[in-house]
């Protein structure tokens, strides 16, 4: 893999951020709104619950992690959509750029933007609402890593879907995190769900993260093996997503879909 083409993909996105601040809106504005809403809701719930429960880590903490996952996934898809919107596939793929270089470029772009977003969220949640992850210490790292891996995997899968089905299928991508959230126990324990939803939830690595987060925040014992299972699942899904994208790309080259790809080629 060559570094220059990967840097090219990242640089393009930085140019777009620099020239159009509106593109930074999803990175900062929506997460800020989420933190503010859930922060005040947590505070309100703390008031009516008295000293028995602290909703700040249980609600605001998980919202922060969920937003991070969403940003990661959308970081990949948004970079990909830039090429869809500017009809740039012919210029890109008639070049020496390999699929692995292209996807790595999308992933690095997502890492950069989502880490900036995460820092902004952490600062706001800590300063305004007193959210602290100090009790979790180094355990934060594997949690973030699993969400990161799954966010990347889902972003690549969603991009492959848009490449295969056409630009209009973009509208199926945006609600993906919302569709997953009921199954992975973001706001409630997985045990609350009926068995079939629990089974579905265990197919998604974030379910292991949020179960672990909740256990740690409430001072309960949490199995590291469970988290490792989530990490292994996320890693496997990442490999599968890369394979899927490469396979879809080969299909679009074989059928002529890539050469014809434009706003009119909605399938």
């Amino acid at each position, binding site marked *: 893999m*060559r570094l*220059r*083409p990967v*840097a*090219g*993909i990242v*640089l*393009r996105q930085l*140019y*777009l951020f620099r*020239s*159009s601040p509106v593109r930074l809106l999803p990175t900062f504005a929506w997460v800020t709104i989420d933190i503010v809403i859930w922060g005040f809701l947590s505070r309100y719930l703390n008031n009516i619950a008295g000293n028995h429960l602290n909703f700040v880590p249980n609600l605001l903490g998980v919202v922060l992690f969920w937003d991070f996952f969403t940003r990661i996934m959308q970081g990949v898809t948004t970079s990909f959509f*830039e090429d869809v919107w*500017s*009809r*740039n*596939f*012919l*210029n*890109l*793929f*008639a*070049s*020496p*750029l*390999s699929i692995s270089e292209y996807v790595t470029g999308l992933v690095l772009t997502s890492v950069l933007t989502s880490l900036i977003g995460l820092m902004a969220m952490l600062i706001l949640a800590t300063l305004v609402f007193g959210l602290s992850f100090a009790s979790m210490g180094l355990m934060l790292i594997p949690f973030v890593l699993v969400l990161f891996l799954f966010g990347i995997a889902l972003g690549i899968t969603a991009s492959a879907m848009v490449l295969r089905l056409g630009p209009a299928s973009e509208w199926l991508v945006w609600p993906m995190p919302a569709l997953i959230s009921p199954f992975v126990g973001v706001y409630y324990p997985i045990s609350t769900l009926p068995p079939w939803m629990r089974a579905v939830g265990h197919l998604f690595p974030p379910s292991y993260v949020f179960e672990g987060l909740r256990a740690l925040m409430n001072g309960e014992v949490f199995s590291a093996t469970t988290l490792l299972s989530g990490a292994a699942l996320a890693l496997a899904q990442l490999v599968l997503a890369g394979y899927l994208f490469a396979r879809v790309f*080969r299909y679009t*080259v*074989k*059928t*002529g879909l*890539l*050469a014809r790809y434009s706003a009119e080629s909605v399938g």
Partner: protein
Amino acid sequence: MPAALHLSPEPITSPAQPDTVLGVTGLCKSYAQVTAVEHVSFNVQRNEIVGLLGPNGAGKTTTINMILGVLAPTRGAIAIGGIDVAKRRSQALARTNFAAVYATLPGNLTVEQNLRFFGLIYGITKLASRIETLIAQFDLVHLRHTRCGVLSSGEQTRVALAKALLNRPELLLLDEPTASLDPAAAQTVRKQIRELAKQESCGILWTSHNMYEVEEVCDRVLFVSHGRILLEGDPRALPAAHGVHSLEELFIRLAREPLHVGSVSPEERSG
């Protein structure tokens, strides 16, 4: 009623030579029941400008897309600088570049940003100086910080040509590069491309519907219709060889009578 043209019933194949920058052999592309390109074979040599001519839907852009690796052939082989596109895609595509009216550069990046972006994609070393050279060569100095989306057609063509030359390609593919230009701008672009073919020592495959332009620029032309190469030769000699007055007349007759293929000698095949 003019007599039917005598065209080649067999696929035309030019033997590969040491200076061959593009070798296309037995290229076919079929979609379900439709055959878009059928047994197309040709070469492009270094310092040569070859015109790929034919009516709309003849298979020109399909052929170019296969050379660029964005469309897989059903059968056949393509080699750029001797490297097989199917087997070593990245290495082969590093030796070529293209400009086409339907492949505009991202309009939300400036001229300089686009050149830097694609320069990195093509892995160009000493990119900054290469960009400066091309910006000066295509008179883009005053437009370097302008977004490509707001440029005129002529300016966009110049930027696309600058991008197409970033990697000093051995093979340059130009799909109707002057289609949206006024006559003066088109003349300037033709002059620049002719000079480039000499200076950069590259081979150029050029498609156009402007027969005057083809006669002026191309060393050799390939007439394509219904996915097959029907005629090949010097654009200045072909009309007389086929009993017509101009290349345009020859084009029109080929477009209207593409299936009147008779048996001809190998000499007649190449005009």
